[in-house]
């Protein structure tokens, strides 16, 4: 701990010494700049035993982030101050505290770029390495260490990283090392320069080291753990005119960990994407297979922290409230799926397009399990301390995780009236995605959303959202309406109500009203809302937590400069 503080102090001292000279350089031709942002979310809670909003001893809870970045020519430094006193409802309680968990210095010299401190980086699609931060989701797996980027020639980039990852206010126990190479052949091969063909290839390698520890298989047996776990990935991006094809394959050697029940099978992932694009029409087809790819820099970790790799969702992210009631969460160890999406614009001044054109988006996704077969007759499926299972690569498993078919039509009828209509059919496996099992494992839901915007004047607009979620399972039917009045660019007022009108238990047919007012002044925004938030469940890596319902005020301030 002492040495840790010392390095920290030395770093800060160095920064302070550098700063005045850098500030003086501000008037010079290279130019320097400081920018930053600030966000605060404060919630005041009231007890509401009906919906399950428990008393909060602090009454108020608050999260806040402040970023400051300084840039001067090829030099770059920044930090983020965070405070959670205490973390607002829904955040991991281990964030409680105040401090500077993120800082970095970065400079470019010739073909090199060096970064020291906390690093956000992604290799290719991120399958074996991605560090990122999404504070509204309470996620940050920044790498604390160094990064070197080397660009020997145009179209070639080599990257190396070395460090440990953020674990709330601490660091994870595993050391992560990795390298990535990326080649854009267009910049390399002269004959490709004016051709319609685009080729980009890349490869990466990541290794994690974690010291040995005692993991018992039974009271008499303990596991022989690999201290170094390596993963490799290769990718290719092909394009020809309007067509695009992309593939990324990754493999990881034996990595017994808490999310896979300590099995020794290797992990594999594949993501294939094909696209077609022309103005007014975009088509995408994606297929994905994930097999035992949970990769964290701490063996015993089960929570939403310390991920080394990132496995993107191929299902459509829904933002309408009721459409997002059953959101799919990627299952890194066991999933096979596909997605198809077509975006089409019916041109304006046509029969269907009308005066302003019509936007249509159709999306379908299906996610199942992979097939798991017994390794031998004496081993159970997923038994710890064994190879766990065998899985034929191209076979799709029987367990249905998720289905989503949705169609979205947007049409502007007149200069001042616009309608956006969404229909969605969804099947959602609560057992797999939420980790709780009821008699009905699969929720079937139909969701309808109509959004109408009426422009009263160039500045003033009225927006009405009506939504319905129809299902026989879980909590039954929900309806929602939202009315919003904006006076651009400064004022915004909205009222909404969600009603669980179809709950089988008639005493649980609650209303969840929400009212908000916001004032916007350039990049500064202050929003005050009052309302009730429904209870939710978050499951990651075999650990589930309940986000209690809440009833109260929320004050949000965001600024940036």
């Amino acid at each position, binding site marked *: 701990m002492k040495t840790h503080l010392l390095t920290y102090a030395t770093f800060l001292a160095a920064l302070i010494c550098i700063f005045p000279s850098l500030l003086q350089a501000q008037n010079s031709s290279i130019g320097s700049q400081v920018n930053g942002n600030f966000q605060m979310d404060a919630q005041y809670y009231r007890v509401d035993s009906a919906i399950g909003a428990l008393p909060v001893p602090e009454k108020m809870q608050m999260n806040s982030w402040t970023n400051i970045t300084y840039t001067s020519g090829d030099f770059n430094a920044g930090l983020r101050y965070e405070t959670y006193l205490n973390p607002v409802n829904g955040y991991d309680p281990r964030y409680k505290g105040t401090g500077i968990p993120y800082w970095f210095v970065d400079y470019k010299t010739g073909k090199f770029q060096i970064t020291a401190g906390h690093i956000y980086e992604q290799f290719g699609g991120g399958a074996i390495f991605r560090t990122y931060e999404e504070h509204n989701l309470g996620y940050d797996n920044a790498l604390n260490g160094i990064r070197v980027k080397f660009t020997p020639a145009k179209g070639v980039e080599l990257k190396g990283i070395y460090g440990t990852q953020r674990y709330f206010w601490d660091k994870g126990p595993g050391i992560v090392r990795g390298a990535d190479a990326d080649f854009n052949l267009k910049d390399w091969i002269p004959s490709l320069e004016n051709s319609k063909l685009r080729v980009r290839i890349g490869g990466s390698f990541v290794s994690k080291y974690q010291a040995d520890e005692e993991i*018992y298989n039974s009271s008499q047996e303990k596991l022989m753990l690999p201290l170094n776990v390596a993963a490799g990935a290769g990718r290719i991006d092909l394009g020809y005119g309007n067509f695009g094809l992309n593939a990324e394959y990754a493999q990881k050697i034996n990595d017994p960990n808490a999310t896979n029940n*300590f099995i020794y099978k290797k992990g594999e992932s594949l993501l294939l994407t094909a696209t077609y694009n022309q103005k007014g029409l975009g088509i995408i087809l994606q297929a994905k297979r994930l097999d035992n790819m949970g990769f964290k820099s701490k*063996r015993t970790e089960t929570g939403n922290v310390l991920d080394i790799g990132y496995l993107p969702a191929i299902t459509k992210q829904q933002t309408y409230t009721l459409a997002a009631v059953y959101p799919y969460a990627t299952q890194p160890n066991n999933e096979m799926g596909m997605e198809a999406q077509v975006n089409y614009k019916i041109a304006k001044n046509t029969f269907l397009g009308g005066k302003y054109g019509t936007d249509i988006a159709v999306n379908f996704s299906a996610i199942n399990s992979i097939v798991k077969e017994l390794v031998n007759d004496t081993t159970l499926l997923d038994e710890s301390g064994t190879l766990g299972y065998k899985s034929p690569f191209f076979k799709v498993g029987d367990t249905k995780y998720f289905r989503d078919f949705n169609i979205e039509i947007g049409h502007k009828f007149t200069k001042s009236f616009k309608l956006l209509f969404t229909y969605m059919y969804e099947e959602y496996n609560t057992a797999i995605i939420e980790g709780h099992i009821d008699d009905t494992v699969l929720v079937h839901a139909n969701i309808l959303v109509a959004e109408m915007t009426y422009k009263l004047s160039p500045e003033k607009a009225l927006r009405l959202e009506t939504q319905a979620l129809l299902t026989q399972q879980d909590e039954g039917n929900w309806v929602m309406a939202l009315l919003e009045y904006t006076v651009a660019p400064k*004022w915004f007022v909205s009222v909404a109500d969600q009603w669980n009108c179809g709950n089988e238990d008639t005493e649980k047919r609650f209303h969840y009203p929400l009212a908000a007012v916001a*004032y916007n002044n350039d990049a500064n925004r202050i929003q*005050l809302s009052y309302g009730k938030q429904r209870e939710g469940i978050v499951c990651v890596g075999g650990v589930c*937590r309940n986000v209690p319902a809440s009833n109260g005020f929320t004050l949000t301030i965001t600024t940036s400069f």
Partner: protein
Amino acid sequence: MIKITILKSILIIAASVLVLASCDKIDAPYIVPNTDPIEPEDTAACPVPKFPAVTAHYKRALIEDYTGHTCVNCPRAALITHDLKDKYQDSLVVVAVHAGFYAKPSTSDSVWAYDFRTPAGTEWDNFFKVGAVGNPNGMVSRKGYPNNQQVLSPPSWANAVKNTVSEAPLMDLQLITEYDSAKDKLCIHSKISFLQAFTERTLKISVIITEDSIIQAQKNNDVTVGTTPSILNYVHTHVMRGAVNGIWGTPVLLIPENSSFAPVVTTFQTHFTNFNLNTMVPKNCHVIAFVFDAETKEVLQVAEVQVVE
């Protein structure tokens, strides 16, 4: 323009109200009896027995497994505690604390209607934020609380137990119980013998009762543990049934540290009735006592005995 200013003021006032509203107005009476039940030593009801001399001094670890009957991933965690208990025997004490969302009894389905929650377990879960991190999770001797690192995932319990039992014990803790089945009365006697010099700190002792061999349904998603999605005749073990001396125990009377070290011995006794009322089976029950630092909450020593030998 004036309108905007008014609206702006309203927003600022509303924001201030939000801050000002975060206060607790306390009305008289300002002094209430301390709820920590410091019972007078009723030596007549429970005569103090003679404790055997302590021969082997070693530190024992306490695993608190926060769990619930509707938590599908919890049976696997329970299995880990069984393996550890087999390995460490008397050096390890296990408590299954049913608390939080997944321990809530179902109002609609009678299979899931039973309730293992206890006021103390619920309070601990809220205080240590175990359920807020997620189930299954737990603590080993409540270590790490001052740094907000007390919540440990089940696979990491083994290492934490190994480290804890290898520490030098600050004290020894002995427990003697006498159960009178006719009166359904249990006398619990504990004795703390300090083994090394220590800087002055506030210590407390908590006494709880756990019960084994309760057969009730448990949700499960692990085929290596049992049937899925439910094990209808699941054998629950180490189920915490209640705290005998309050949620946060009672203070251990301490003589301030002397310059020349002499072991300080302190005894504590309590009694507990109502086994039948609480539908517990005495022969399946254990009494667990643990001494902890009132500030850091770290459990320094723990002991466990059966209610009926």
